[in-house]
């Protein structure tokens, strides 16, 4: 759907994108994570031609975005809905007028607009606000209207630029749910740019982590979070829980829905014939699936056996570095 090859972009003398390559598949929810100012928004803006790029290629459905002329670019943008951090509604206009705006720009007739606005307000779940002024709405409501407006032209892709970053946690949850719903029901490909890891964990299928204008990690969301590459740790801003300095710390992950793994920890202890220490753990939710992570502390000589056992049970694991000391592995 969207293929990015070696994309570079500079503002004056600062190179913002330093050769980014990735592919976004039709129908998926794709996350682009990174701290502020690493170029992730620029990358997103390149996708609908709001920003130009210097070199490399960015193709949407086989069309090179850079080659589009003004008129073609406008037509192309119809297929690429976009929502923003600050909602970007016409504050003085009503909800109706805001959603109708793109259709008016494309000269739809009044009945079509009427019907479409009502339909879209149903989709985003606020039909009663049709005549409210945009400035009277709460943040979450504004973003819903912005989503409705972005969907007005029946786009194939919805680009979300920090769409939940200005919202409180509850609205964030509601908006991410809405995005997931739109993705499932309407089959629209969603690209999410955010620094909020929860948002990515909750709805994205695959992700990339951008740091310093380059992709530092990519893959399925669950895998990236479990592998915890350095770029992700930098982004999360934490080094994880403090861990014992003696022995080896081993982290493993399993889904709570797998019944046969219910007693995994006990099974592991029995296999090793050793009462290991549990030094950390937690539950994370990935797109509705709950994954349990467990960190245990083992003496060096048992580690190999433990890892082999976990692999045999089909459980993903990794060795963790010990506090601030050198990395094991």
């Amino acid at each position, binding site marked *: 759907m969207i293929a990015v090859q070696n994309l570079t972009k500079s503002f004056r003398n600062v190179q913002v994108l330093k050769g980014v390559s990735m592919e976004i598949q039709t129908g998926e929810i794709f996350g682009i994570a990174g701290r502020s100012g690493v170029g992730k928004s620029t990358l997103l*803006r390149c996708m*609908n031609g*709001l920003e130009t790029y210097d070199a490399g290629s960015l193709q949407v459905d086989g069309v090179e975005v850079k080659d589009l002329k003004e008129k073609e670019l*406008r*037509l192309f*943008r*119809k297929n*690429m*809905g*976009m929502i*923003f*951090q*600050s909602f*970007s*509604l*016409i*504050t*003085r*206009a009503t909800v109706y007028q805001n959603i109708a*705006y*793109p259709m*008016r*720009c*494309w000269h739809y007739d009044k009945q079509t607009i009427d019907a479409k606005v009502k339909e879209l307000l149903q989709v985003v779940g606020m039909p009663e606000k049709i005549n409210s002024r945009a400035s009277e709405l709460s943040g979450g409501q504004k973003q819903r209207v*912005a989503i409705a*407006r*972005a969907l*007005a*032209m029946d786009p194939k892709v919805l*680009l979300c630029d920090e769409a939940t970053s200005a919202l409180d946690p509850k609205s964030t949850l509601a908006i991410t749910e809405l995005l997931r719903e739109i993705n499932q029901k309407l089959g629209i490909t969603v690209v999410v740019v955010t620094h909020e890891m929860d948002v990515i964990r909750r709805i994205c299928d695959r992700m990339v982590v951008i740091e310093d204008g380059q992709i530092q990690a990519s893959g399925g969301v669950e895998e990236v979070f479990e592998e915890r590459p350095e770029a992700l740790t930098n982004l999360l801003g934490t080094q994880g829980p403090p861990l014992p300095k003696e022995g080896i710390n081993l982290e493993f992950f399993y889904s709570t829905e797998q019944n046969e793994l219910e007693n995994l920890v006990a099974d592991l202890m029995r296999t090793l014939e050793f009462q290991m220490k549990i030094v950390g753990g937690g539950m994370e939710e990935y797109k509705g699936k709950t994954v349990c992570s467990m960190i245990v502390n083992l003496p060096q000589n048992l580690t190999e056996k433990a890892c082999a056992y976990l692999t045999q049970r089909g459980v993903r694991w990794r060795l963790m570095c010990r506090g601030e000391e050198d990395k094991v592995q």
Partner: protein
Amino acid sequence: MTFWESVVYYGQRLIAPAVLVTLQIVFFTILIGFVLGFALAILLTLYGPNGLNHKRKVYGVLNFLVNTVRSFPILILIVAISPLTRMIVGTTIGVKAVILPLSITATAFIARLLESSFIKVDKQLIEAAKSLGATNMQIMWGVIIKESVPAIFSVLTMATVNYIAATTIAGAVGGGGLGAVALTYGYQSFNDTVLYMAVLVMFLLVNVTQYLGDWLYKKFL
């Protein structure tokens, strides 16, 4: 004549006709200035440094013109372009003759103020409109101007108040109106009644304008 009799007398003979002249000058100045200034402001916004369709040269020329007109004090401009005024209007005194220079300065003044309101419209909102496939003109009218309506009223208010004052200056060089009455029949004839009546009327005009402007601003916010 008692004081109140003289107030009524001067009021009818001098002040009332002068108020009409002043209102006429202000009305036409603001009308012409707004229409032309509005168009100019759209061009300045469109071609400006952060505009939708930045054109350095066109903007440079327009910007230079606006700055040039704005650099003239009103009194000097009226005098300086009097040959032009004579050519177009046929005379350099009277209502029509002052409306020309005043509306030229009002155009530049209003254009600059409107431009600065237009460029304050949220950049991301303009980007959003672009992302929906809107044309530059659709963004100009549907987003930038739509969002600026209250600001437009406040610009109009400021311009009107400004040009009520400017008409008195124009009055000093043959424009007629309240300024001329206050100067000629008041100050230079040692007639304090006329002078302060004119001052009072100006005070009322400015206050009513400001009040009306504030009311419109709030109504359209």
